């Protein structure tokens, strides 16, 4: 069994009060670095095949370390299931890929590109959306708390149809209805989520979100105007005003990013507050500030990591320019055979460091912030929930949620 050795972190002694009603999700921070390094190395050595077990180990880490009332959640999925699910996923993607290739080569000058576009930007995203929904079904079916399993009903097709309906409405309103789209999809997901015999219910207001969304919407409009307007001002001689507008663009972009983070945080709080399982309520006090700070810190540290090798190579280049006659030293070392392999090693080190920092400072930090912010109410209602027999859904074939990283 490929369970990484996670060193225990001294946890506060579990006190057992007489059925508390308000409990918090408290993530225990166990060392993640070993798991990530081992997973990356094995993934590289095995030409990528280990990634299913690595992903499983990561999920097990996150689930297990998210605890409620002293007991952690459990991820019971396995690498083997992800691997088999991936093979099934390939069987679906393969014909699609072939169709695109054949159509674009032999479809004729006019029809070929049109058909290929329909396939790549219409049918392919639809298939991936359905696969993603089924992937969620797999993850839920492999999640347990207090020994009782979650599961998901509904279908990928149902999810797809709702998405298409709301995409059309959103497009007709030039994107103003995006919060409605997101709420509709969240509702479909939550109402089809079960914990044992308890079905999720969902009721969240969209008005508070609309306010933030409109700020974003008008901000985006302003960005479009500015990026069209600045060159026009330049060409008509008003260079000063054009320059000011151009300088304003990146600042505006940064501000809009902040508003977007704020939107997501508010959405998280509202959607969570609107979710209920058999009387068990959820609430989150997540704050935009902490999320933004986590991301900024992550970005700064990434910059620092990249700065070291870039700085070294710039230094070498400068030295070569200033004193071309100077023999030896860093520059010959860096360009020599030993230096070459050292540079490769350094590049590899930077790659691993990147992955490490992303996992620990971004993913885990955001997971931790979200988990810590959640308060669970009326946990006593667990009494009324039982594991439903025969609700074993989410077989191996649903494990599509792996392998296809669209961004590479």
């Amino acid at each position, binding site marked *: *069994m*490929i*369970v990484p050795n*996670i060193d*225990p*972190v*001294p*946890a506060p002694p*579990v006190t057992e009060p007489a059925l508390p009603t308000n409990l918090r999700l408290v993530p225990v921070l166990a060392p993640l670095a070993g798991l990530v390094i081992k997973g990356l190395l094995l993934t590289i050595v*095995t*030409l*990528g*095949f*280990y*990634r299913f*077990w690595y992903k499983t180990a990561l999920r097990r880490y996150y689930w297990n370390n998210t605890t409620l009332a002293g*007991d952690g959640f*459990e991820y*019971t*999925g*396995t*690498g*083997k*299931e992800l*691997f088999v699910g*991936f093979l099934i996923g*390939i069987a679906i*993607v*393969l014909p699609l*890929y*072939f169709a695109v*290739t054949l159509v674009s*080569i*032999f479809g004729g*000058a006019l029809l070929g590109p049109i058909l290929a576009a329909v396939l790549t930007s219409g049918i392919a995203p639809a298939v991936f959306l359905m696969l993603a929904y089924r992937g969620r079904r797999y993850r839920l079916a492999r999640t*347990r*708390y*207090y*020994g*009782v*399993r979650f599961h998901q009903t509904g279908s990928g097709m149902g999810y797809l149809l709702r998405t298409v309906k709301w995409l059309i409405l959103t497009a007709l309103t030039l994107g103003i209805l995006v919060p409605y789209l997101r709420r509709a999809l969240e509702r479909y997901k939550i109402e089809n989520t079960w*914990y*044992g015999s308890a079905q999720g219910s969902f009721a969240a207001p969209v008005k508070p979100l609309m306010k933030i969304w409109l700020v974003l919407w008008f901000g985006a409009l302003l960005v479009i105007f500015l990026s069209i307007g600045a060159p026009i001002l330049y060409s008509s001689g008003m260079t000063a005003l054009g320059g000011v507008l151009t300088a304003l663009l990146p600042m505006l972009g940064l501000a809009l990013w902040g508003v977007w983070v704020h939107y997501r945080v508010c959405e998280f709080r509202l959607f969570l507050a609107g979710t209920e399982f058999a009387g068990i309520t959820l609430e989150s006090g997540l704050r935009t500030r902490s999320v933004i700070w986590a991301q900024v810190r992550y970005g700064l540290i990434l910059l620092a990591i990249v700065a070291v090798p870039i700085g070294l190579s710039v230094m070498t280049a400068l030295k070569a320019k200033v004193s071309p006659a100077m023999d030896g030293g860093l520059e010959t070392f860096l360009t020599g055979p030993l230096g070459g392999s050292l540079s490769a090693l350094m590049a590899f080190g930077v790659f691993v460091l990147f992955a490490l920092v992303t996992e620990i400072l971004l993913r885990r930090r955001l997971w931790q912030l979200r988990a810590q912010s959640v308060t669970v109410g009326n946990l006593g209602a*667990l*009494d009324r*929930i*039982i*594991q439903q027999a025969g609700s074993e859904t989410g077989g*191996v074939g649903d494990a599509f949620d*792996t*392998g*296809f*990283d*669209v*961004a*590479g």
Partner: protein
Amino acid sequence: MDQGMDIPARYFDGVRPVPQPVMLRAVPQGVEIRLSGEVPPIVWPFAEARLDSLKPEARLHRVSRNIDTGERLVVEAEAFASAFAPYLKAFGKGRAGEASGLRIALWTGGAIASVVFLFFVGLPLLARVLAPLVPWSWETTLGKSVEPQVLEMFGKGSAVQLCGEENSPGKAALDAMVARLSAGAKLPAPVKVEVLDTAITNAFALPGGHIYLFRPIIEKAGSPDEVAGVLAHEIGHVVHRDAMRGLIHDGALSLLIGAVLGDVTGGSTVTVLAKMMAGSAYSRENESEADRVSVDLMRHAGADPRAINGFFRRLGAGEKSSPSILDALSSHPVTAERITAVEKLAADAPQGGKPILSASEWQALRGICNQTRPSPAAKS
């Protein structure tokens, strides 16, 4: 046997999400769980009891017939250790639905082996078998659709010019050479050969049997047979339908790499590198095969099959040759291996055969680029 001591634990029955206080005891058959009240104790056979962690608390789950029953036990770490230490080896291993470490290693090894096999044997074979099955008319259509872009690529800003007016003596000499070489070739359709007015030394065959020689091939050649050797090599690509093979090979290759690495778009660095490696190994094999055809056609036409080597050496003389990593990645390297292979194939050919063109024809061919004309395929 000693019945062991009783230790307290939290038990979840897998049906209700409620912790139940129980007493545990190690018995020879397994873990005995005694619930409060007058119910008979539950026993987890050791093989069904799976240990998730020992610290900070011991956590166990139960797997029966490879199905997770949902039953859980949480025990204080020290108490568990003192009661169950002698039995730790007897506990079952792994989650339901997971394979053993050895099997995973074997699978991964098998998967890597089959991918490597596909890379170097399967895909070339696939391309070889499928290419002849594609109708020639499809290939011609495909060639026509890429031609304008290719011509544009080699021209400076505008589409490149073709050498020789129709019916000029240069063009006639070229056509004569093509006819003499084609006589011995099993071609799917007659080839069309043109000379491109560019400064780069190159030659290629498009899908659909359209061959382009570049001007320097004729300028640098020492004899008509050297030009004919290069041309016969390109005819070899058409005979083998290498353009179609290449398309099939590339498509299948990106698919395979995408599948292995889980990268559908094919944009990641690793994907591109892997493609270059496998692609160049494959195309080098094709080059050697085209060389073989070149030797055959030259022999059939009564010309000197070794002449192509003379041309290769002429090219190599101008450049300093140092072996580098790039050779492994280059798709068209003229290597010592290729030259030796041609020597071997042409070993029994008589020295200094009759040149493929007469002296006057050769003179005319050398002057083919004195007049140029726009390509009909080029976009205006």
